[in-house]
């Protein structure tokens, strides 16, 4: 009797061993992949532990330099837009999507001239998000204001409401587009603080990098909530203001020297 039970036990052990082997071979890659995935910022939930923003030091913004504009266009595929054949170039100039633009100002009283880049200001209370009927315009927990291209119906109310004229409507078909900025006819878009870089764990934006590469360092990007960030230290060290402060939108992009 003992002998026969030993024989049965052996069989069970063999079966259990094989089952465990098969189970671990099946599950292990999943467990492993999960571990890898959680190390990827893309799969981490965006939290409000950070708030991304910028400081534009206009005293460093060089006249005639458009490095930030060029870099933004390349990074986000805006340079891939094609003017439809038979279109008036002047009209296209008013319809082509722009995420960032250079502006030159003169103070009426003092005559002081200032240069600065203007883009979506990533408001804490964005009017575009308030007015969007479908919720396509939204603000991420980290302060980045975005458009969900699947929800955008192209009503353009956000463009009416944006105090910075920062949004663009895609008027024509875009044949070639980047995976990270899937541009679609009939939808609205704007600067997203290079959100793909945020989600890949990179710490800068294309415009800030380009400005630094020119040696100007007029654009400082970073986390407004981290007192140790270069951005927070720069903001603490120099006076800055928001464009259209009267609207009390608490913008994420700040300017000094304006």
């Amino acid at each position, binding site marked *: 009797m003992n002998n026969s039970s030993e024989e049965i036990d052996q069989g069970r052990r063999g079966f259990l061993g094989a089952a465990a082997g098969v189970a671990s071979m099946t599950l292990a890659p999943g467990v492993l992949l999960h571990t890898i995935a959680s190390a990827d910022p893309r799969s981490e939930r965006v939290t409000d532990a950070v708030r991304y923003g910028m400081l534009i030091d206009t005293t460093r913004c060089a006249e005639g330099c458009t490095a930030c504009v060029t870099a933004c266009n390349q990074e986000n595929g805006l340079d891939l837009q094609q003017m439809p054949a038979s279109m008036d170039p002047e009209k296209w100039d*008013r319809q082509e999507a722009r995420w960032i633009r250079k502006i030159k100002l003169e103070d009426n009283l003092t005559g002081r001239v200032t240069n600065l880049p203007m883009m979506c200001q990533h408001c804490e209370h964005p009017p575009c998000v308030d007015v969007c009927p*479908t919720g396509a315009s939204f603000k991420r927990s980290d302060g980045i204001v975005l458009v969900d291209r699947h929800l955008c119906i192209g009503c353009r109310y956000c463009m009416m409401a944006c105090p910075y004229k920062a949004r663009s409507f895609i008027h024509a078909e875009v044949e070639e587009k980047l995976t990270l900025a899937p541009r679609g006819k009939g939808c609205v878009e704007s600067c997203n603080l290079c959100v793909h870089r945020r989600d890949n764990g990179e710490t800068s934006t294309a415009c800030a990098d380009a400005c630094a590469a020119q040696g100007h360092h007029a654009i400082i990007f970073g986390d407004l909530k981290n007192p140790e960030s270069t951005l927070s230290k720069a903001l603490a060290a120099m006076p800055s203001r928001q464009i259209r402060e009267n609207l009390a939108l608490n913008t994420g992009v700040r300017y000094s020297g304006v």
Partner: protein
Amino acid sequence: MKRIVYREWRLSPQRYWALLAGLAAIAGIGGLAFWYMEHQGHWVTGMNNEVVWGMPHIFAVFLIVAASGALNIASIGTVFGKSTYQPLGRFSALLAVALLIGGLMVLVLDLGRPDRLIVAMTSYNFRSIFAWNVILYSGFVAIVVAYLVTMVDRGFRGYYKAAGTFAFVWRLLLTTGTGSIFGFIVARQAFDTAVLAPMFIVMSFLYGLAIFMLVLMFAFSQDQRPLGPFIIKRLKGLMGIFISAVLLFILIYFLTKLYGAQNYDLVSFYLVSGGRYTLAFWFGWVILGLLAPFGILFHPALGQDRRWIAGACGLVVLGGLASMYVIIIGGQAFPMALFPGKTLLESGFHDGVGGQIAAYAPSMPEFLLGLGGVAVALIITAVGVRALQFLPESLADKDVDPHAAVKA
């Protein structure tokens, strides 16, 4: 006052079908214009990233505002108990629904992604006045249809007053919502004032009444039904009041703007230096759209002539379209004050360098889409009065004027 008998529009089949064919052709051309703009993209329109709402919005907002105003005639009869207006209640409700559908159609077909209409109906951001309006508009159609049922079905007569009052309150909310679309835009100097909400209500009274009178006079004359001078006189008087009210609100709007010193340039833009917008304001809206019809309606001789009265209503309609052009396009064309106290020397995106106003030249497809919306509204009205008993058989003085009846 006699019992009012309602009858279908007894137009000869040839004339009826010719009318429908004409309207259907205009609606069809509007459909083609939509197809072209949707297929090509908005680059074929005059709209751009500065002037983002163009000609279709002028037509759409005008029709939506007029829809709410067209219901006013029914409301005066029901809510305020004016028996003279009660025979016009059914037609007023039909026209209101028809104009709203025409206007909404233009609005929807001008979306960048009209194919995503289902998203607009299933995904709501309730902070948005646009989202409220989706509910206000669809609710308006449902409520007015229910109100119509209380007018025509004796079984529901007990709910007549309640339904009429509810529809009246709803239409006020609806126009407040439409006005607020602009009034709550803080970004643009021309908007950003709550005065626009009541101003839109007053404009709705006027534009709705003008369209109502035009369509009513046309429908009655085609069918040789009697339309007495009494009812015309009442409607004319009402129009005079509404014209005065719109003029008053224009004054209030500018005074409100002038009270903030930073808006002097905006007021100057509209009244003096705004080029085509100044022209559209003075000649299109104020002189042709308000003062001229007022003068015609109350002129001792011209004010008695039906053709002149119809002309005055037509001028009010054209003035209404001009008012939308001034408000909607002018408000976007005026440069935004991004940097007060500074002069813009250069910009990578226009931004009103040197005080230049934003460019917008409406394209033909935009205009045709707008006209298509008008045609759809008129088709609904024509089919409605032909198929159902919306129009009273007679609006002769003896049938609607209690005093005339006594005299007789």
